[in-house]
């Protein structure tokens, strides 16, 4: 019983340690990746290949509608 608790506490420290270490390393890697890409492969004309998934493309419709609605409302209010 106490043995299991000890093991549990040990696992807790090791576990959280690894989770933090892993995600912190990922932050470093992302920053490196972004730096490399922005320097050597700068922003291509993206809109050529746009990911369109069934769900996200619905969003686009919604998005445009929302933008238009929001801007419209805002403008009306601040006339």
């Amino acid at each position, binding site marked *: *019983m106490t043995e*299991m*608790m000890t*093991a*549990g*506490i040990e*696992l*807790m420290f*090791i*576990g*959280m340690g*690894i*989770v*933090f270490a*892993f*995600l*912190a*390393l*990922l*932050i470093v*890697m*992302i*920053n490196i*990746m*972004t730096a490399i*890409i922005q320097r050597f*492969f700068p*922003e*291509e004309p*993206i809109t050529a*290949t*746009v*990911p*369109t*998934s*069934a*769900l*996200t493309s619905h969003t686009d419709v919604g998005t445009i509608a929302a933008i238009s609605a929001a801007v419209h409302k805002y403008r009306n209010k601040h006339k």
Partner: protein
Amino acid sequence: MENLSSLWESTGLYNFSGPQAFMMLVGFLLLFLAIKKGFEPLLLLPMGFGAILSNIPVAGIAEEGGILYYLYFGIESGVFPLLIFMGVGAMTDFGPLLANPKTLLLGAAAQFGIFSTLLGALALNLIPGMEFSFKDAAAIAIIGGADGPTAIYVASKLSPELLGAIAVAAYSYMALVPLIQQPIMRALTTEEERKIEMQQLRVVSQTEKIIFPLMLLTLCAVLLPSAAPLVGMFCLGNLMNSCGVVERLSKTSQNELINIVTIFLGLSVGSKLSADHFLKTETLGILALGAIAFCIGTACGVLMAKVMNKFSSTPINPLIGAAGVSAVPMAARVANKVGLESNPHNFLLMHAMGPNVAGVIGSAVAAGILLSLVK
């Protein structure tokens, strides 16, 4: 007349046991929550129905030869949760995370919900009637990851008998995220902190979105291969969507495939809601621990965000820390909503999506740790 009596002996009425009837009521309760309360209906509806079907006496729908018995193989083999994870990956946009990578730390902090619950489960062994092995405790702990497929995958590997209760707890609390998180978020933050506005996120290029899942997978392969099945399928789905050259595969994985697997997964999980596995004192422990796990995860996320806000060059609203538990996208919406109450011009949603998907990665990593160290 022999037939008539054998017919009577074959009725449910003759064969019903109390526990079975009770579990059918649990099934109806899940249906009620799904349909009338809108609790994660995509999973709770088939799950509740599976619970009803598998507890019908005589019919043997979840026993050898019954349809739920065959479908359950998709869980036992890990194929169903991994395919769902692939579809979720295809629906996920890593853009907000890549624009503000330090929010990954929020997703890390929230995993404390998992490991503290592990301790809690072990501590519950002190209460008579509760008996959790180390594996059971680890399987229960994963509820704190607030991620359905991850919880089902881990539970199916470590503690299949608890699978039903764990899945019910995980999905129920995910549906209850708005209720659970808001008071904690308010208690741990000041009005001033909730008003903090964050800088608009930069646009992330497609190249970054293509490289990131591959980088994540590589890191996982090198450092924590036991998390590779989960992380790998998630990254596959994400890559299919972001690369733009296999649109038809990406669409199918986000729609028909995930729908089919969701029906099957829900039914099979429900088939683990049998009386002998669910009607135990332990189940109450699991439900209690699950709620605590969500609370601790939320609190840790918020506290971590407060610490980071102290040291960061750009302001961080502590509310987005709560999104670190995953529960995509409800947790992010809650952060947005609570933020709007304090500052009606402060839209935190996209900022909270970063820690939100970080929470998915974090709990997959935690799952890998549990799978590799708990034996």
